[in-house]
């Protein structure tokens, strides 16, 4: 393999930290869910927030997006997040199905 110089060799330490935090967050999720700490809707919100934090850690550190230039960060993240948020509009109809009593 060719040697490729880099401008940001940050050392290994931070990756172990991130890994540890991810494992702890997973453990928190499992405990919350298994103990049924919250009502289902609240539970969903809490789990999603934790998952978004976890994915932010993975994208930022493991996938190195933190070290890419601003244009790349913003264009990519805004595009995918916007599209996923838009799909939330589907749910208006999912709820209607219950109210209309469709089988």
């Amino acid at each position: 393999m060719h040697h490729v110089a880099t401008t940001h060799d940050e050392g290994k330490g931070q990756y172990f930290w991130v890994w540890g935090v991810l494992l702890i967050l997973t453990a928190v999720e499992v405990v919350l869910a298994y103990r049924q700490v919250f009502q289902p809707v609240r539970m969903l919100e809490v789990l999603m927030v934790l998952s978004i934090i976890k994915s932010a850690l993975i994208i930022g550190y493991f996938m190195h997006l933190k070290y890419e230039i601003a244009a790349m960060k913003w264009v990519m993240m805004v595009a995918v997040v916007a599209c996923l948020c838009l799909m939330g509009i589907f749910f208006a109809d999912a709820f209607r199905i219950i109210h209309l009593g469709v089988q």
Partner: protein
Amino acid sequence: MATGEVVHVHAAPQGFIRKYIFSLDHKVIGLQYYFLALTAVFVGMFLSLLMRVHMIWPTAVLPLVGEIKPETYLSLLTMHGTIMVFFVLTTAPQGGFGNYFLPIQIGAPDMAFPVLNMLSFWTTFVAFVVLLAAFFVTGGAPLHGWTGYAPLSALTNAGPGQQLGADLWITSIAIFCIASLMGALNFITTTLDLRAKGMTMMRMPLTCWAWFITAILGLLAFGVLLSAGILLLLDRNLGTSFYVPLVVVNGQIMGHKGGSPLLWQHLFWFFGHPEVYIAILPGMGVASQLLSTFSRKPIFGYKAMVYAIMAIGFLGFMVWGHHMFMSGMSPYSAFAFSLMTMAIGVPSAIKTFNWLGTLHKGRIRFQTPMLYAIGFVSLFVSGGLSGPFLAQPVLDIPLHDTAFVVGHFHLIMGVAAIFGMFAGTYYWFPKMFGRMMNETWGRVHFFITLAGTYCIFMPMHYLGMAGQPRRYSQFTELAYLQHLIPLNTFITYAAILTIGAQFIFVINLFWSMFKGPKSSDNPWEATTLEWTTATPPPHDNFGGRTPVVNHGPYEYSVPGAPRDFVMQTDPASVRTH
């Protein structure tokens, strides 16, 4: 980054197969896409001819299909839509012209990933073959229209074409999604990474901007359709119930339960509406390029044009629900979708205004490419104006599923995009083949096609308002539609004439390829990079050198300049606007 970026440029290939079949050269791949689309458009056109003839003479026995039964008609309709939307409107402007001219116009030796480019074409080819295979299997081609609405598409016993034909249809679409994804990420990376020195984003020709934004739309939209298609295949073959509620077919209760046909519509149109812009944006790019070149004027409001393309791309993702006003969708989301759809008229109007501004007081050269560019604007406006009607739920409810909608989308998405392709063909033909196309026959072709398409699609608006539904194979028996038969007959005759005129184009194309007068390197006196290189361009586009760009793309009629145009590669010392 200090990392030395290495762009792999393959050596010129040897041997027929590496040169013309499995070529890595974006120019050859572009032509492959173009001729694939040309084949597809004739298949699609033939299907539409059969449908039009059947509508007027329901009992006529037609070549290849015999007497058309209602289910045959629906098969024709499905295949016409699918072939035209996927294998013509998506393939030719982006895969064909985009592949050929995006790298040249930005000064790159090839696309960023040549192997991926080749794979993308051959995957598209496989998708096309799989789709055509649906004609020949038991039961024939599917009946569910190009939109494949569930539950019809999700049940294997809902009709003769819903057996293996529908499976092949979905498989073809899924393969096409993968091909388009490969193409899209290649286009985006090429635009981001391989622009020649001086070719800043704001110096790119509007064609490149259009291809770039189209690729972004494709990248974000096709993945969703892929998922939707996988779920549909599972519903059909593994008995899952994503899209199918409790249904009874022919008195028999199906095993499905609890699914929602609306989910398919949402997923499909989440892809489907951006797809409309995938079809039309490259046409807009070509029209902008040609209007400026042949008016000998800089494009009116270059930056506004760029931002309008971006805005159309952005808003294009937020309006898919306007296809679903009649589906039982939540009225609150219908309100939001209606609002966003009206908003998309704003960037579209900006573009139209700028095109007219470009023409205003220009020294217009009425050559064939220019005629088609003007035709594009005309069709875009005509088709676009019926958009605001359909964008409002209140008006959409009576007009939905009538011929009004057929007229609307054929004008704006079908014919306008095709005019963009014609414009591109007549304009870039000298660069692609080193010869000029016949001007006289080009004009004849233009005037017949323009008049013909208006005669076909304009009356459809009246038919729709008079209540003629779409997708009906026979209506001559229905009393309330009797008075519409003469107008329908007129449309069919116009269609026959227009389709006949396309043979003028094909003959002109192939005749000029071999017998046309030789062209110079820059026959239109245009400014962009493809006109600085040899004709046809060498394997690495610029013969071993990389152009240096000093000017914007539309420097025409510059006061004090030696010629009435300043090439993008002219020395920086030349003063421009």
